């Protein structure tokens, strides 16, 4: 069964303290690995799509990387406005579903 697991569940960092969020996935034939940001009371906002192991994408203070089993979202020198829940999702070739993890709640302290 396809599965996405995110860790940690929650993370508190000081402003400027870099860290990484983990997403472990098990899907049959990965056709896309997705990262989203979700603010309270809002729908998920698209950040990145990764398609193959070794691929990396960057946007401002965020960088997403992909291996055959995991993806990491690296946050460099975060600011309080980066506080949100970060969701990871994976799509496999077996079916049309896109499976989400439970998310990592990130809180950046000023």
């Amino acid at each position, binding site marked *: 069964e396809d599965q996405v697991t995110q860790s940690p569940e929650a993370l508190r960092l000081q402003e400027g303290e870099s860290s990484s969020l983990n997403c472990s996935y098990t899907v049959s034939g990965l056709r896309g690995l997705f990262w989203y940001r979700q603010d309270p009371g809002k729908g998920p906002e698209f950040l990145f799509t990764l398609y193959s192991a070794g691929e990396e994408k960057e946007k401002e203070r965020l960088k997403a990387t992909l291996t055959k089993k995991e993806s990491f979202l690296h946050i460099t020198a975060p600011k309080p406005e980066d506080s949100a829940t970060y969701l990871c*999702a994976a799509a496999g070739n077996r*079916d049309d579903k*896109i499976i989400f993890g439970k998310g990592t709640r990130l809180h950046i302290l000023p």
Partner: protein
Amino acid sequence: GAGVSQTPSNKVTEKGKYVELRCDPISGHTALYWYRQSLGQGPEFLIYFQGTGAADDSGLPNDRFFAVRPEGSVSTLKIQRTERGDSAVYLCASSLDRRNTIYFGEGSWLTVV
């Protein structure tokens, strides 16, 4: 439209009532998804449409839930005989096709009292 539009944004209904939630996808997007999200959880897949047809409805929890997309654009999620456990945010997303990134609306918050 510029983004995925969902209505209503909030709905409070009594247990046992019927509810319809509407999704207007991004113009030109043929793929449409419905998800359900409970507090502290990730989005849970309900149903996927490619064009007018439900290509995968394996996530619908039971036969009280039904969704349609008659003209391949707007979709309606229908919930009969609502139960308190149906309370959640119902998210709609669309993409150009199944190979592309999906973009979400702001969700419809359903509360069953």
